[in-house]
């Protein structure tokens, strides 16, 4: 690419950049460089941006890169301030080459600039860097010297070995520790020899401080790792063995042990055994880690071979380590451990079987799963054991085992999701004893497929009458899962007349209820009229389980007309359940519940109505529940239902709930219900100080500007009183009456992310109008994600340009509200992820609040309602219409 063209593009970039800021302006490379010469932190953003773009953009433009670098290095060599030189070094970190080393090197030794010089030099791959560092090392002191020492080590500079060796004995401990670390990083035999030359390692350790001793230990391990990586196994092993020496702290010894295994393999067994018997958790923990991670299966098995000789806690660690391997190492060892008298070892072994066991372990696990104290662990292992033949073995054993084992196998097959076991499970259900049949049916509930449906229908005719219902439930579940409601229904209808006795017919009817297909409704309705009380009962029960409200009227009619008390109660409860589950409008449901309440003859039935009433979440439902509070036999249930409803609607209907909630709080009902009522009353009190009804405008964005920059960009709502902005009401919540929030737990949170359909790097405005009874100083409490500005009556009263997550009351501003109408405007910026805000008005004191009358304002444009803070919630709220 031609330089001229590239530079033109950069000019264009700059022009576009400034165009977005509201002005058209071009800047040249020379101008930018000139400005940087006198740069101070916080200034020259446009020049900084330009030069940064040039540094990045000149990647494939050598001419531009050279010109840029020349300019940057000129500034670095000048007497420009640290601020400018830091910026220059940031760009050079990307772009500097060998030729810039001399100027960079001049800054080595300077306490403040050394870091920035190193920041660049670290990226220049040249021996000249090493020379410059070594030269600077001779004179540098303090942190500058330490930085140079660190870099020499990180670069593995062989020419630095002797100079660093000299620093090993530096009187400044930090320097000597730096040299120790650097030589360890270099990691050659020559580097290591420095320790001997300066008599560091052979010194008795007590001569050194702890910090230096431990630094030597770290360096020793670095040498060892480096020797190993370079193929110098003998030296590496020596270093690891030195680390494992008893003079070192346990965790250093543990790291040494790991290295010994890496260099010696199986030959390191005695060291591992020593660790396993050490009674030191660092050492035996590392040994277990080695068993878990050593690549060779045989090595792992050899190291764990003496497992029974170790302490139980160590045995458990080793078993877990073997279990974590994926190569099946140590299966025989773990199998043996399943018989260990120590319960923890035994459990660990049985548990490990689930990870590493094979089909040879199945019998052992079945045995433990069928009886004993470790049934759950063994069963879990059977369910989790991998292997293509495991299911086949279990299916075979299902035919051959005793009943306890068969039951365990059924559970295991269920846990394994072994659908291929369904025919065998059908057989077991048909032929085995009730214990096994029950487990087989549980498994079939999940595992049977469409092919098993006829067999399951057959089963109804085979099992004991008392078990037919359970089979029917399985059948219904299988048909539902396989979307075979109609086929299953037809299959049963075709067999219904062939039923030999009432029990079978009852089971078939109940199954039809579970299937819930409309083709079964005629026979079930007919069943309501049957001579047999059992059949009528089954029909009521089947219709009560119906998936929609279609048979609700049938059940209501039974509840009205039957003389059989049991049937009446059953039908009424079924009716209530169907209405509860139906997708009907709340008002319609309420009407049905009122019907049910009228038909209810006993408190238990009325309590049933109250229990479902709580899900409605309307004021009418609340009032229906509250109307029963004075009935001593229903007061608990009525109060509970009222509280549950109030929890859903207090944000919008608070004032209409207060009387009844106060009544509940003082009633003879359960403590938890009273407490709930008090908490809702408190919430009503809390919520009412938040402004929850807002209009929204936005989102607003501007190319090239992030949320921080957008904070000060004036969009339409800030201009001319917002007359040019489009305003709309904040999306109402799905929760009835909740004005702005979308989360019932945070009804005052204005969720802009949801309201404005997500997005990043943008802003939105919120506007509301409120009527205030008298001029008053108040405090606005504001929470926002992210930054926020607030205007009251056109005056900016608060600004916080931040990036943050939301909590209420993060900011505050004291303002004077005027008597009459006040307009509050809020601007909220969005970086990313959640986006929202809240605002509440806090008055100086309850006394001040009491002096103000409650207010309410409806306007044609938008509506705002605010409650005045008082220390007595109900009094003010009740006054409001």
């Amino acid at each position, binding site marked *: 690419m031609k330089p001229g063209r590239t530079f033109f593009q950069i000019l264009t970039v700059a022009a576009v950049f400034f165009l977005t800021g509201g002005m058209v302006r071009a800047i040249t490379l020379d101008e930018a460089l000139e400005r940087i010469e006198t740069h*101070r*932190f*916080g*200034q020259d*953003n446009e020049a900084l941006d330009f030069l*940064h773009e040039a540094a*990045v953009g000149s*990647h494939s433009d050598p001419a531009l890169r050279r010109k840029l670098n020349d300019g940057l290095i000129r500034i670095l060599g000048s007497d420009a301030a640290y601020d400018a030189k*830091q910026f220059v070094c*940031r760009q050079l*970190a990307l*772009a500097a080459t060998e030729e810039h080393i001399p100027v960079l090197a001049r800054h080595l030794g300077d306490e*403040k600039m*050394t*870091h920035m010089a190193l*920041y660049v030099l*670290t*990226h220049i791959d040249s021996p000249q860097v090493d020379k410059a560092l070594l030269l600077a090392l001779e004179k540098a002191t303090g942190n*500058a010297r*330490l*930085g140079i020492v*660190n*870099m020499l080590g990180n670069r593995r500079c062989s020419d630095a070995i002797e100079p660093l060796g000299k620093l090993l004995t530096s009187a400044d*401990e*930090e320097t000597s*520790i730096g040299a120790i670390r650097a030589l360890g990083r270099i990691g050659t035999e020559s580097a290591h020899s420095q320790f001997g030359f300066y008599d560091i390692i052979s010194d008795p350790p007590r001569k050194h*401080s*702890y*910090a230096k001793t*431990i630094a030597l230990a770290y360096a020793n*391990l670095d040498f060892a790792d480096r020797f190993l990586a370079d193929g110098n196994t003998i030296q590496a092993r020596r270093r690891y063995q030195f680390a494992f020496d008893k003079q070192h*702290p346990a*965790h250093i010894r*543990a*790291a040494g042990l790991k290295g010994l295994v890496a260099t010696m393999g199986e030959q390191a067994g005695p060291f591992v055994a020593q660790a396993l018997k050490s009674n030191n958790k*660092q050492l035996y*923990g590392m040994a*277990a*880690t080695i068993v*878990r991670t050593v690549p060779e299966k045989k090595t792992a098995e050899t190291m764990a071979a003496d497992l029974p000789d170790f302490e139980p806690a160590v045995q*458990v*660690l080793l078993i877990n380590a073997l279990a*974590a391997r994926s190569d099946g190492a140590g299966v025989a060892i773990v199998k043996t451990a399943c018989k260990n008298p120590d319960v923890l070892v035994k459990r660990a072994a049985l548990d490990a079987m689930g990870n590493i066991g094979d089909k040879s372990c199945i019998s052992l696990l079945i045995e433990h799963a069928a009886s004993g104290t470790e049934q759950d662990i063994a069963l879990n292992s059977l*369910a989790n054991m*991998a*292997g293509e033949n*495991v299911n086949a073995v279990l299916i075979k054993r299902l035919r051959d085992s005793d009943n306890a084992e068969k039951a365990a196998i059924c559970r295991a097959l269920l846990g*394994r*999701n072994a659908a291929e076991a369904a025919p065998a499970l059908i057989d077991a259900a048909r032929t085995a004893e009730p214990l096994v049949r029950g487990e087989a049916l549980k498994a079939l509930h999940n595992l049977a497929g469409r092919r098993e449906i006829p067999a399951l229908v057959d089963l109804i005719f085979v099992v004991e009458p008392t078990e037919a219902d359970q089979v029917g439930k399985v059948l219904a579940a299988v048909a539902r899962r396989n979307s075979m409601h109609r086929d299953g229904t037809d299959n049963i209808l075709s067999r219904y007349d062939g039923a030999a006795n009432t029990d079978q017919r009852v089971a078939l009817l109940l199954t039809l209820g579970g299937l819930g297909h409309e083709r079964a409704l005629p026979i079930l309705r007919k069943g309501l009229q049957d001579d047999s009380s059992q059949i009528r009962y089954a029909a009521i029960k089947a219709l009560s389980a119906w998936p929609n409200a279609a048979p609700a009227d049938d059940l209501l009619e039974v509840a009205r007309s039957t003389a059989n008390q049991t049937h009446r109660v059953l039908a009424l409860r079924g009716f209530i359940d169907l209405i509860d589950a139906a997708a009907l409008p709340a008002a319609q449901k309420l009407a049905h519940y009122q019907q049910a309440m009228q038909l209810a003859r006993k408190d238990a039935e009325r309590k049933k109505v109250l229990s479902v009433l709580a899900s409605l979440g309307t004021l009418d439902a609340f009032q229906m529940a509250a109307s029963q509070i004075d009935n001593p036999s229903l007061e608990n249930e009525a109060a509970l239902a009222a509280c549950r409803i109030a929890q859903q609607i207090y944000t919008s209907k608070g004032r209409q709930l207060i009387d009844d909630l106060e009544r509940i709080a003082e009633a003879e009902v359960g403590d938890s219900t009273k407490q709930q009522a008090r908490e809702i009353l408190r919430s009503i009190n809390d919520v009412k100080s938040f402004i929850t009804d807002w209009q929204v405008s936005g989102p607003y964005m501007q190319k090239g500007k*992030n949320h921080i920059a957008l904070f000060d960009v004036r969009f339409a709502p800030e201009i001319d009183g917002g007359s040019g902005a489009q305003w709309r009401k904040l999306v109402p919540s799905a929760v009835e009456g909740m004005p702005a929030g979308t989360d019932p737990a945070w009804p005052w949170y204005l969720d802009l992310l949801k309201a404005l359909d997500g997005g*990043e*790097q943008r802003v939105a405005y919120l506007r509301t109008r409120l009527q205030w009874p008298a001029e008053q100083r108040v405090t606005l409490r504001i929470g926002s994600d992210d930054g926020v500005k607030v205007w009251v009556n056109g005056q900016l009263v608060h600004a916080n340009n*931040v990036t943050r*997550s939301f*909590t*209420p*009351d993060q900011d505050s501003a004291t303002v004077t509200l005027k008597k009459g109408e006040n307009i509050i405007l809020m601007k909220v910026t969005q*970086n*990313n*992820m959640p986006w929202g805000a809240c605002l509440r008005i806090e008055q100086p004191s309850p006394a001040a609040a009491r002096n103000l009358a409650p207010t309410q304002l409806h306007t044609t444009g938008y509506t705002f309602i605010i409650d005045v803070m008082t220390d007595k919630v109900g009094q003010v709220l009740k006054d409001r219409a």
Partner: protein
Amino acid sequence: MACKPITRRTLLKTAASTVAFPYVITTSALGAAGKPPASERPVMGCIGMGGQGTAGMGWRSAGPEVPNTGWVPKGGFLARGVQVVAVCDVNKNNLQRAKFVVDQEYGNTDCTPYKHYQELLARQDIDTIICATGDRWHTPVSIAAAKAGKDIYCEKPVSLTIYEARELARVVRQYGRIFQMGTQQRSAREFRFACELVRNGYIGELKHVTVNVGGGPRVCNLPAQGQPPDSLDYDIWLGQAPWRPFHPQLLGWMAWRDYSGGEMTNWGAHHFDVAQWGTGFEDSGPVEIIPPDGKDFKVLTYRYPNGVVMTRNNTCNGVKFEGTKGWVEVNRGYLRTHPESLLRQKIGPNEIRLHISNDHHLDFLAAVRNRRRPASDADIGYRSISVCHLGNIAYWLKRPLRWDPDNEKFVNDPEADRMLWREMRSPYTI
């Protein structure tokens, strides 16, 4: 009372003297009210006691004044049977609050506050630490902890650069420590199940992954303004970053490149991690990273060796995996699939089953106890955070990059390789 300032040199001596005497566990730490005695509990030190660190350590009565409490397992480590004996922060206010919390928990005044983490790490009675400092301190503190024989629970992101994370993983392996990265999505059923569905082919051949996270940080050019708070040791707070004068907005450090990878590493450490988990590239990474060019690539795009494309886009909720037969979309408390029946799929014993953890803190403690790999170890952390850093580097360099995950370098691109590490400001080093 004026305190003599602690220099690094006196600190070295202090650290030495700290371990010269056996640490005595006080009688009040020996167990009461049904708790196991301290000798049977993991002994923990907590480093970085801001909102996240304090919540992670545990604050049973946490209220709005402790931010981010919803992002850590409720009750933190204190509610999970650890014995916290020491806290550390360079901000005196944070430190005092943390000590108060711990002392309140145990009903004594035994918790020792430290400004210098080296002193805390030198205590031989401490087995485990939390590292919840600012991002720039995660790697230095964690490496020092590993070398001191501690097991580490480190908040994400684990590093400021790719090579920092690589070095951390190396040292953790070298010293055989347990390391859990604070990516608690690895301990949430919905993420695990989503990844199992993908890994087992229930959405067919995986083609595309969408990750919805925020963007990267910016270069800081704030002016000098005011003085650091008296409570703060500003030099340590800056740590490895180039020195610059104070400005109050620096305390929101996540916005600036010297201190953080921004939201790309903050949320990216979670969601890109899940993407790596689901694609099965936990021990590797993408091979191509393409920043948005306004033409063919509207958004940041990654390519994996198997042809899977991953984009950073706000068109999904969290992470979305799309295959030839369906898709899975997952976020916290949110899981959607197509077909919907996948939600009821059971993963069998012969299929790929991922590490089961339902509580990130307990998983860490179990790993410490059993010396096993935790849900989110240093190697996983290294590879996950590399994806985030690679994205930032592509944004910064504004050109497509090719990455060699085996050799851990860009392909024939020494200039891009310069972004893989930054020289630390001495005396801070790893």
